[in-house]
């Protein structure tokens, strides 16, 4: 499971191999015995790791691992979600001796399972809404965050700050996690301004810079004065909003430097904590659940610090809501709740907590959203 490099005699390597099934414990002993025993961590990204977005978030998590003594990191960017990711993982394992592999794009899942079945001593982790089931390789798992909690907070801030009560959301595709972000953002805004609406524009794909810029321009033309998004690289959305003189709320990572005037807050991943946890657990010989989820309370997601335009009451209100998430008392999806066609989706008295998997197959938009889940 761990790569053992120079400084260790052949005998100690043989001893370690003899430990066999308890590989983790054995390598732990080795690492105590000799500082040269290292853990190699592999990470693959679907795009550039400095995209101000999804990939950068993961690269920040991996960068935190580089600070840990005895951990070596191998990374590869722009790995397509094809057989290529299998080759990348194979080479990280066989050539670099990776003992832990992070596959950070949705389409890597099936490929990762195939490679995991072949390398039972290596741990594999997938970032996304994927669920491990019995029969899948036991050395595979997934991690994901309830980032819509952070979007709910961002919605409160947007509801306070918007003068027109019209908010905008630039999405890539109407898939469940996006819809959940849109709904939570809108629900947050409507606790402050019950008349607030969110106009959704789907561009059709995860990275389409010109379309994203056009979407923000169209939203601004319609009097929308706060824009947020769920695309892979929010850079263009945030910059265009700033250029049009409207407010923006970020996504994935902090984009405040791109919009010093109009950046309100943002919904961010906290991967450095998640990744560091995994490495520590591995080195301590601990196991982890195949499915890891969490929101603000678990420290998997967070909000960007408030920008200058965010008023004092908005900050107070948002902080109060955040406290509700932190002590686990607050539930976003509580009935009665209607979708934007007037149909009741959650009956009165019913509530769906964050861990409810029903929320992970969301296919409706809440009242107050202008848009449709059809493509």
């Amino acid at each position, binding site marked *: 499971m761990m790569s053992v490099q120079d400084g260790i005699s052949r005998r100690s390597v043989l001893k370690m191999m003899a430990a066999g099934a308890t590989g983790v414990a054995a390598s732990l002993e080795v690492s105590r015995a000799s500082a040269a025993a290292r853990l190699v961590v592999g990470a693959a990204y679907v*795009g*550039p790791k*400095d*995209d*101000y977005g999804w990939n950068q978030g993961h690269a920040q998590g991996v960068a935190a691992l580089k600070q840990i003594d005895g951990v070596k990191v191998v990374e590869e960017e*722009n790995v397509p979600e094809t057989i290529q990711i299998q080759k990348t993982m194979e080479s990280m394992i066989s050539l670099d001796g990776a003992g832990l592999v992070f596959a950070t794009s949705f389409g890597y899942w099936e490929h990762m399972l195939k490679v995991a079945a072949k390398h039972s001593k290596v741990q594999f982790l997938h970032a996304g809404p994927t669920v491990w089931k019995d029969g899948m390789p036991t050395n595979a798992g997934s991690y994901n965050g309830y980032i819509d909690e952070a979007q709910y907070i961002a919605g409160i801030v947007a509801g306070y700050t918007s003068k*027109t009560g*019209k908010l905008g959301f630039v999405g890539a595709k109407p898939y469940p996690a996006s819809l959940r972000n849109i709904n939570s953002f809108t629900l947050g805004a409507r606790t402050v301004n019950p008349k607030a609406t969110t*106009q*959704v*524009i*789907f*561009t*059709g794909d995860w*990275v*389409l*810079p*010109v*379309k*994203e*810029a*056009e*979407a923000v*321009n*169209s*939203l*601004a*033309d*319609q*009097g929308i*004065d706060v824009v947020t998004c769920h695309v892979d*690289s929010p*850079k*263009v959305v945030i*910059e*265009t909003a700033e*250029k*049009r*003189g409207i407010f923006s709320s970020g996504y994935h990572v902090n984009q405040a*430097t*791109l919009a010093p005037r109009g950046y309100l807050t943002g919904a961010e991943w906290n991967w450095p904590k998640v990744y560091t946890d995994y490495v520590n657990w591995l080195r301590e010989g601990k196991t982890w659940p195949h499915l890891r989820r969490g929101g603000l309370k678990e420290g998997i997601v967070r909000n960007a610090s408030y920008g200058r335009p965010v008023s004092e009451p908005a900050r107070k209100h948002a902080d109060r809501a955040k406290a509700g998430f932190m002590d686990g008392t607050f539930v976003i999806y509580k009935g009665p709740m209607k979708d934007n066609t007037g149909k009741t989706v959650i009956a009165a008295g019913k509530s769906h907590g964050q861990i409810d998997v029903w929320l992970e197959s969301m296919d409706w938009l809440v009242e107050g959203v*202008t*848009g*449709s889940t*059809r*493509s």
Partner: protein
Amino acid sequence: MEALGWWGVPLAVLGGAIRASTPFLFVSLGECLTEKSGRINLGLEGTLVMGAMSGYGIAYLTGWPWLGVVVAGSSGMALGALHGVVCSRPRVNDIAVGIALMLFGLGLAFYLGKPFIQPKAPRLPAIDLGWWSSSPQVRAALEVNVLFIVGAVLAPALLWALNNTRWGLAVRAVGDSADAARAMGYPVNRVRLLSTVAGGFLAGIGGSFLSLYYPGSWNEALSSGQGLMAVALVIFARWDPVLCFFAALLFGGAGALGPALQSVGITWGYYLFNAAPYVLTLLIMIATSSTRRTLIGAPGELSVTK
């Protein structure tokens, strides 16, 4: 800001036409000139992306966006020269070379552009042509970049030059019949080389517009095929620079249609609306095609029409 409602759609299409058409315009004018000389340079997608990257990089490093534009044009010239020189050899297929150069340009731009994805380069300035309007939406739509105006002037100028100057005659002669041009004493390969270099220059500048003005940042998905589309657009425009201008406006405006319709609540079919320019191209191509003759305006030496 007052909401515009349905008026937002034509305004967004107009604004989109002005904002998003410039790369199409420059690449298609460049390709038009190259094809008029009898060669096809399919590598302009790579040239466009290379121009976008080098322009952004230089603007970031020096703080001068206009220097970025010049460098973008120069890198386009270099790629054009490579195409021109290789194709000057006997029995070299210009289409194959173009595809190779496209992949080369993309790869080189991604490799060299790595450090420039994150930094923010200064943008090209805009000219406010909407000063007369009190509506912020109209003013935003009529914010025009100098490069757009340059392209708009260049299109008729190129048409005039092709039809009325000695240089234009040389390009057309070489493009229509290499044998006749040779008999008249024109250096066929040199004319084609220069036309390809000039075409690359324009495509490079088109790239700098993408990264330095709209959408105004450098990343690997910036072009997503606009250079290829612009090459097809030349055929659509019948090798006429002025028609290239209108076709570029059409493609730019059509790109704004999907988002604009969603912003007024038309939430179905955005994939279909996003495909609008291609559907339109197909329809026009079918409507104007003939079984009896090649396309009007097609240079006779072009390998696809020969």
